[in-house]
């Protein structure tokens, strides 16, 4: 495979990482809640998409939208009933809780649907290849890159140009100050949590073709989501975007070039990046 092809493949994988991880970055930045179950929401979204396409023959975009709505609603219930009780708890209790939730989600999928991995059947218009003029490449990867870029622009505008985004940024930077200015951080968090989990669900559906879909998904990809958030910085949409693309491209390229031990480089690079800028590469606060 030539270099452009590898780059495009890496970009597509990076877009999926971005869509899944961006919600985790914002919720961790807002509440400092270590939500290790975030990948579980992505998995559930993937299952909702695959199952609704298979049994109700929904079109792919509608299935993704259904995943967003369903998982966002579920996450609001979980957040109000369970997560909210743990905001004041130590981060270790939060880790225990969210790992427990991952186990429950894994078991629920294993029992309800089965331990085998599910394949996402792409609609015809996303299969095959598209001629870009300088290269012919898989239509679906190109579509992923387009969707990821659109989402980035949308999220960036929402974050930087709306009142809601300003509130979120204020609360991430200084929660007490934001609260004393009248920002209801609790409600803000419920809303952000729902959007973040919904986006993870969309990412799970979009990425099912690349990352696969089986009950072990949340644990297998947890390190990747966490690395993207750590390298990108907490509560930083553009930081997470750059980190996700960087990790996606490097991971893809290195795994093609060095099929054995290729993932070692990604960990080594993360190690160096975090030693250099512990707050994230693009963090305004710096090292």
């Amino acid at each position: 495979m030539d270099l452009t092809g590898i780059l495009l493949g890496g970009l597509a994988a990076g877009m999926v990482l971005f869509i899944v991880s961006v919600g985790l970055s914002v919720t961790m930045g807002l509440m400092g809640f270590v939500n290790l179950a975030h990948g579980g929401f992505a998995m559930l979204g993937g299952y909702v998409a695959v199952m609704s396409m298979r049994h109700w023959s929904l079109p792919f975009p509608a299935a993704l939208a259904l995943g967003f709505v369903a998982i966002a609603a579920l996450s609001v219930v979980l957040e109000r009933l369970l997560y909210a009780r743990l905001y004041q708890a130590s981060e270790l209790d939060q880790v225990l809780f969210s790992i427990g939730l991952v186990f429950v989600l894994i078991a629920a999928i294993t029992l309800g649907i089965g331990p085998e991995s599910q394949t996402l059947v792409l609609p015809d218009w996303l299969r095959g290849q598209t001629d870009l003029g300088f290269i012919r490449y898989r239509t679906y990867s190109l579509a992923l890159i387009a969707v990821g870029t659109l989402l980035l622009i949308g999220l960036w505008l929402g974050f930087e140009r709306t009142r809601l985004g300003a509130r979120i940024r204020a609360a991430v930077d200084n929660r007490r100050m934001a609260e004393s200015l009248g920002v209801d951080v609790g409600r803000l968090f419920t809303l952000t949590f729902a959007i973040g989990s919904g986006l993870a669900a969309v990412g799970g559906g979009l990425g099912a073709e690349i990352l696969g879909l089986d009950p072990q998904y949340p644990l297998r990809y947890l390190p990747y989501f966490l690395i993207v958030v750590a390298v990108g910085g907490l509560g930083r949409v553009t930081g997470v975007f750059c980190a996700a693309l960087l990790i996606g491209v490097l991971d893809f390229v290195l795994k093609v070039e060095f099929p054995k031990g290729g993932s070692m480089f990604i960990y080594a690079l993360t190690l160096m990046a975090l030693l250099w800028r512990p707050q994230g590469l693009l963090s305004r606060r710096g090292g």
Partner: protein
Amino acid sequence: MSRSEPALALPAARTLAARHRVKWWEALPWLAGIAAFFFLPSYLAFGTQVLITILFALSLDLVLGYAGIVTLGHAAFFGAGAYTVGLLAAHFGWKEPLSGLVAAAAVAGAIGFASGYVLLRTRGLALLMLTLCTMAILQESANVAASYTGGFDGMPDLTFAPLLGIIPFDVLYFRSQYLYALVVLFVCFVVVRMLVYAPFGQSLTGIRENVLRMHAVGAPVHARLVIAYTVSAAIAGVAGALFTQANAFVNLATLGLDRAAGVLIVLILGGYGRLYGAFVGAIAYMVLERALANAYPTAWQLGVGLTLMAVALFARNGIFGLADALRRRLAAPGSK
């Protein structure tokens, strides 16, 4: 001596002066461990794994519970110890178990020192990910060096020399392994217990509670953390070496995220920062997991997950935290 007596009359001073003393109930876990050897002979293989997990969780308690270092990569040291004795036995004919433990402790301690020296300047999420990456790099290295380590399949069918030259390893019933693990656990426990009640342990607790103040009073924070991390890594290496010797194999899972997350769960479940949390957590978690896996082979994770969620929600600081809360409620029924 006469000058200290009025000071000791204060209840708080008495508590402080006596808290390092051995209490009568501290003999109970060891008596239970010996009793299990005689009364539960068919569970000794499982018991050996529990003892190894206790030792591993104890090493984590030193850094997590006392020094407040949250790590997601502690299996790096468990695996380093496990692979050290495995490689020595398979390629160098070094099959003597006790010196193997020492070698494993040295290798794991050296890795702990080197990584801790660099990583312990960071905190929070960055530290969590840096420890995770260190572990992942070690695991990938073991995977790549397949001609020595067996790669993904690991090294099966290792043999070790008899303990002290006379007691052979009991492949079928794990009798000798169980007692061996119990003795090693006891020795390591005594070391950790001495360490946490020494001034060194007090300064670790100080760093956990208020790192700025410890800097302000002139404590060498970074050096203390690195020493604690190194000791903890060495003990985790001993636990890993015990794992390889007792089970006669080693594989990549000893270096994996599952094991690192598992020991974290065990310690939080039992209660961190109190030495015996490792014992309670390991027994509770492993017995629960085994019972559920036997009863519901496909759905055991459901029960384990629900238990973890319930403990996190209703029992702050694990099972020991729950016991503390109950005791406070019983002790002062009118004050509420």
